[in-house]
């Protein structure tokens, strides 16, 4: 008769042991879970703060071909396309008639294209080129540093899209395609 009692005691001890182990494991799991929750909350908070950070376009004051100052801040309230280009860059030249057309068609809706040259550049060559094409928007003389303020690559052409509040909202690397205008710029011109 003693044998079943011993067996029961052993079973009880064993079961208790397993339960204790499971309990410890559970505690660790809870701890891990709590840690994960705290970590996720921190991440969300960080993302929230980065979203909250403004993506304001830097202040820009550059000289145009006549020596007048072109200030980006003067165009607040407009949708600005800041187009970095060079006379020696074939796609930059190729997209300029489209930029001229956009400026003509959407000026009344608040679009403002601003061209910024990228070195090495001869002022006379720029002058002749924009005269020949009939560029209808301001063109300022930029440096490598000017472009670095907006973009770390050397891709040309490059167009920064700045909203009416002066925030950079997108960038277009390479030639501006009609589909990109439709999707990224046109919705801002309402």
């Amino acid at each position, binding site marked *: 008769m003693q044998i079943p009692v011993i067996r029961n005691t052993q079973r009880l001890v064993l079961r208790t042991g397993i339960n204790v182990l499971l309990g410890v494991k559970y505690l660790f799991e809870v701890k891990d879970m709590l840690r994960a929750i705290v970590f996720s909350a921190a991440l969300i908070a960080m993302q929230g703060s980065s979203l909250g950070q403004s993506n304001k376009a830097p202040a820009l004051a550059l000289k145009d071909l006549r020596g007048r100052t072109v200030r980006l801040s003067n165009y607040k309230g407009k949708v600005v396309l800041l187009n970095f280009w060079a006379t020696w860059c*074939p*796609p930059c*030249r*190729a*997209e300029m008639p489209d930029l001229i057309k956009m400026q003509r068609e959407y000026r009344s809706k608040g679009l403002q294209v601003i061209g910024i040259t990228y070195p090495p550049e001869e002022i006379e060559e720029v002058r002749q080129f924009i005269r020949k094409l009939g560029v209808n928007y301001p063109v300022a003389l930029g440096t490598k540093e000017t472009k670095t303020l907006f973009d770390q690559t050397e*891709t040309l052409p490059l167009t920064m899209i700045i909203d009416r509040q002066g925030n950079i909202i997108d960038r277009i*690397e390479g*030639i501006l*395609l009609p589909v990109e205008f439709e999707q990224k710029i046109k919705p801002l011109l309402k």
Partner: protein
Amino acid sequence: MRKNRVPALLGLILVLSLATISAFAAIKTTTIRVEGMKCNHCSASVAKALKATAGVEKVEVSSEKGEAVIQFDDEKVTEAKLREVINSTGFKAIEEKSAKN
């Protein structure tokens, strides 16, 4: 019943084989020489414009070699159209070096 099934099965096999053959035949690869692609930073526009063209599957542009290797569906886009797209980016598509299935 069995007699009715045989022609239907044969028909199905025929349709499937034709579909497979046409699917494989549609994809071509061509190498187009591009003149004036000297600046590395500008050549990205060629790849971008080609990739945005309907029927273009894959594009590799090399400014060093001065060429664009394009995989395309010849039922959706022609080589002439591809050259036109390259020309629209300010460069000049010279001639087709090779075209293979």
